[in-house]
């Protein structure tokens, strides 16, 4: 049986939420943090919140953001698993392609699905398309018999609904309740998470 592993990025593979990290570059840290928290708690929809947060951060040059993102701390156990199973692992992130491309290609080293940015040179204009994570899973269906999804937030719900196995992972913060209700497993420790993944390889 061929299995694909779909990982959320922020707070799952990364040990920090990425947008609040970027916001330190402009003086909007508290505001972005608040929006991120409200989104994580499922109080405002990801799509609107994400578009708004991108707008707030759009004054920062893309290359500056990419540099910040590149320094984000990754979970070593999850990274080891991805590196060892590169061909069947995917990052499925609502984050912007121009912001996370470099990080995924150079440090995580697997294929990915992301939201798409509208930009001109080094200047971000806005969001062209917010990723529907369920659609990413649907796309992988043609190549795989089984899909395992790993995530923590509201925008992972559509991915869990379309996947065969859902693992709610509370690496950085507790996974949102709606996602827990769609999951088969819940864990807060990345070594335990990798332990589950090994059984589905």
């Amino acid at each position, binding site marked *: 049986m061929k299995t694909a592993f779909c990982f959320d990025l922020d707070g799952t593979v990364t040990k920090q939420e990425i947008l609040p990290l970027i916001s330190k570059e402009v003086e909007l840290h508290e505001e972005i943090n608040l929006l991120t928290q409200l989104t994580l708690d499922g109080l405002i929809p990801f799509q609107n919140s994400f578009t708004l947060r991108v707008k707030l951060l759009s004054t920062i040059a893309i290359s500056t953001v990419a540099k910040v993102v590149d320094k984000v701390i990754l979970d070593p156990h999850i990274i080891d698993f991805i590196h060892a199973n590169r061909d069947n692992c995917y990052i499925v992130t609502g984050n912007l392609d121009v912001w996370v491309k470099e990080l995924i290609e150079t440090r995580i080293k697997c294929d990915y699905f992301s939201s798409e940015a509208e930009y001109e040179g080094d200047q971000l204009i806005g969001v062209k398309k917010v990723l529907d994570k369920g659609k990413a899973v649907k796309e992988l269906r043609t190549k795989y018999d089984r899909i395992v999804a790993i995530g923590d937030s509201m925008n992972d719900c559509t991915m869990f609904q379309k996947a065969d196995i859902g693992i709610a992972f509370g690496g950085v913060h507790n996974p949102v309740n709606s996602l*827990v209700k769609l*999951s088969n497993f*819940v*864990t*807060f420790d990345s070594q*335990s998470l990798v332990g589950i993944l*090994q059984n589905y390889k």
Partner: protein
Amino acid sequence: MKVKNVVICAAGLGSRLGLDTPKCLVKLGKHRLIYYLLETLKAVENIRIVVGFKEEEVIEYVKSIREDVVFVRNPDYSTTTNSYSLHLGSHDLIEPFVTIDGDMIIDQKNFQIFVDAIDVNEDLIAITEAKTEDAVFVHVDEDKYITEFSREPISKFEWSGVAYFANFKINKDGQYVYQEIEPHLPMKSVMIDCWEIDTPSDLDLVMNEVSHIF
């Protein structure tokens, strides 16, 4: 540690006990029941707990004791059996595992007796002196192999709810775990002291007999 994986089933309503709380969260002395079980299992690498009834409360409490537990969800806990929970908790495991009910009191010494009796390639059942109200009795031959389970006739020993499975998987549609074991009899057994809390009188018994644990 010979035992690498333990699956604890703690999804049920515990309706016979008549408390509006999962049995694993019943307070015994200073802590809740599952605290003592996790103490006993401290040296085990992988702990899985199957959760259902009031899963948020169980997860929150367990997480405060041990961070690396894997919770397996049984959302259909109110209409499914313990055997189904055990299926969910173990079907994907590649390695052998020990199963323990989430309403069990077992101290370190007795768990060690069980672990010492394990031969890694052979299934093993822990039996205990019959004392619970709804006992499933075991009949054991002179080599300590279980030959039969029964509600009647009774015997001196009962199925404890603790077992080591190396050679078979628990079916999805099983009724009771002992019925899942039945086709594989005879099976090696080991005698341990442990207590299970199904009813108020089981709870009284535990508080009287093994209060030293708490």
